[in-house]
């Protein structure tokens, strides 16, 4: 939908609220949920009245799509000298006239922040103020949202079926000449993206950010170590700031805090050992899907991206941008609603800048990044991760206090979305990186829950019937796991047939036998 712009007259207390009124009509036409409309109205009306009361006039720009409302309220002066003070409840500079009308209680900005899902404000004295907020029109519902952020471009698929075999949860099928992801099984680990030779699988195109001014970037150390010997991490950081980002945070600041917190947690609850560090969201997805009995072993902290969001959200006027190095990170509900940049896109911008500014390289630091606690056993690669999870499930790993399980080699350093070899990148970060702060871990507010992905039917009796059928069909299939039918194994094919995702005739061996009999 095209953005709609409403002009807001300064000092017109009588007409104030017209833009909000119009916005309400739009939301109703869209059928937005009542609670969302209510929040949008509070935020919009407060923002509109701010322009009426305090400024020389401005406008409200509304952008609506099916799932969210973005509002930008901009005025042309006089601007706010001290935003921190303005954000404080009870602080107001409203004139007496505004107070007569019931405004000026100093609640406006806090009210907008409370009633929006994203809020930022920028102001320059003498130029004006820009306030932006976002309201999600649907309650983020984990049940019906696709759990993954892998984009499929069927036209590019050569049907090589590499993805079929590599998927750790066997969630991919290649049928009707294109890959298909079974949402209920996908853990968003993006191994298939790394394996796909044709580019048919890639990361879902995130909401792109246009200009970097005023944005705070959260980026992984792995990304900072992508630029070859000539450009150490500190130079990349410098480039990012030169590109206009107001501030940058390294994701590892949060990872380290979570690792330290997990070590403490393991000491406090020895009966839960080995404690699993909640670093990699793909691994958490895997645990929820395949190892729900191990959920109590996961230290109850937010993953690094969610912790970053929780911390930055508390700061006023921060417009966050994430550069996830993994699909599952992008798929994390909270991050998905933020602005994100795919690593390749950001990499191009950084490279252009670095090449143009080859000379100023006085950025080498003598100190190296802080190291992680020693008692953590780190395991990467999903086949190893699954092996270790099986061991924990069987009670064979109680001599290890803390484990950190990572989908990609060397953690995010081995992400398929990055190009530098993971071992080289780790070395570059550890030897030539720079010190970063360690941010405390954030406690989880909602505990992890099991994912009912692999159940054949909600009704247990029906599920048992299906299981029997599956078994019968599996015995009819040749057991060669050839993948020609589009399922990775004969067992998966049997399940697909029972669940009406495929037909028996799609098995070429059975089809051939049928021909012979004729």
């Amino acid at each position, binding site marked *: 939908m095209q953005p709609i712009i409403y002009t807001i007259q300064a000092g017109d207390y009588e007409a104030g609220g017209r833009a909000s009124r119009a916005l309400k009509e739009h939301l109703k036409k869209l059928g937005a949920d009542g609670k969302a409309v209510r929040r949008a*109205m509070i935020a919009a009306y407060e923002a509109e009245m701010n322009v009426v009361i305090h400024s020389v006039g401005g406008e409200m720009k509304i952008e609506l799509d099916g799932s969210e409302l973005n509002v930008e309220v901009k005025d042309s002066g006089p601007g706010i000298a001290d935003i921190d003070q303005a954000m404080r409840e009870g602080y107001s500079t409203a004139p007496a006239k505004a107070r007569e009308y*019931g*405004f000026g209680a100093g609640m406006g900005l806090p009210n907008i922040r409370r009633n929006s899902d994203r809020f930022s404000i920028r102001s320059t004295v003498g130029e004006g103020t820009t306030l932006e907020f976002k309201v999600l029109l649907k309650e983020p519902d984990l049940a019906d949202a696709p759990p993954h952020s892998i984009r499929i471009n069927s036209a590019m698929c050569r049907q090589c079926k590499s993805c079929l075999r590599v998927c750790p949860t066997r969630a991919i099928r290649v049928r009707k000449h294109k890959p298909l992801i079974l949402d209920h099984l996908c853990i968003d680990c993006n191994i298939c993206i790394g394996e796909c030779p044709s580019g048919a699988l890639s990361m879902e195109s995130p909401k792109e950010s246009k200009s970097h001014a005023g944005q705070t970037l959260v980026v992984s150390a792995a990304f900072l170590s992508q630029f070859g010997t000539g450009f150490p991490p500190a130079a990349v950081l410098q480039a990012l700031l030169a590109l206009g980002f107001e501030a940058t945070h390294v994701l590892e600041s949060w990872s380290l805090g979570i690792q330290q917190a997990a070590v403490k947690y393991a000491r406090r609850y020895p009966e839960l050992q080995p404690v699993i560090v909640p670093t990699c969201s793909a691994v958490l997805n895997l645990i929820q899907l395949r190892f729900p009995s191990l959920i109590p072993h996961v230290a109850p902290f937010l993953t690094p991206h969610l912790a970053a969001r929780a911390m930055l959200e508390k700061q006023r006027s921060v417009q966050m941008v994430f550069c996830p190095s993994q699909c599952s990170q992008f798929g994390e509900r909270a991050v998905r609603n933020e602005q994100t940049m795919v690593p390749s896109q950001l990499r191009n911008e950084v490279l252009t800048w670095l090449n143009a500014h080859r000379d100023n390289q006085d950025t080498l630091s003598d100190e190296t990044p802080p190291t992680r606690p020693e008692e953590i056993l780190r395991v990467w690669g999903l086949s190893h991760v699954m092996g270790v999870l099986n061991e924990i499930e069987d009670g064979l790993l109680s001599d290890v206090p803390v484990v950190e399980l990572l989908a990609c080699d060397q953690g995010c350093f081995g992400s398929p979305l990055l190009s530098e070899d993971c071992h080289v990148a780790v070395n570059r970060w550890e030897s030539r990186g720079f010190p970063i702060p360690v941010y405390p871990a954030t406690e989880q507010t909602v505990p992890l829950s099991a994912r009912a992905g692999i159940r054949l039917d909600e009704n247990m009796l029906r599920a048992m019937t299906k299981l029997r059928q599956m078994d019968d069909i599996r015995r009819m299939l040749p057991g060669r796991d050839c993948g020609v039918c589009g399922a990775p194994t004969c067992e998966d094919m049997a399940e697909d047939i029972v669940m009406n995702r495929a037909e028996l005739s799609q098995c070429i061996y059975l089809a051939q036998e049928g021909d012979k009999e004729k």
Partner: protein
Amino acid sequence: MNLQTLVECIDGRILTHVAQAAETRVNRVAAGDNISGMLEQASENTLIVSNLMGRSLIRMAELMDVAGLCAVGGTLPESEIIERASERGIVLIVSPYSLFETCGKLYERLKSEGVLV
């Protein structure tokens, strides 16, 4: 409980949309003289009691779909305000009691009915 019954307990007069009042359910009352505070409280089951009977209050009622607006102290709102409320489907009420007394009576009533949210 429905707005009409609630109005009876404050000996109030419904100025606009009388029929609507009988169908509107109220489980909360918000009173005040600052818009921000009332905005936060407002919902379609909230009766707003205020001595601030101006256009901005009408606007707020309209945006938040409140159950009704109640003026206090027996003073009728200006005719322009009544007209606006009537145009925009807002139930406008006037209570003969002061803000304090009106709220006291409403609170007692809602509490005894056990519907207070």
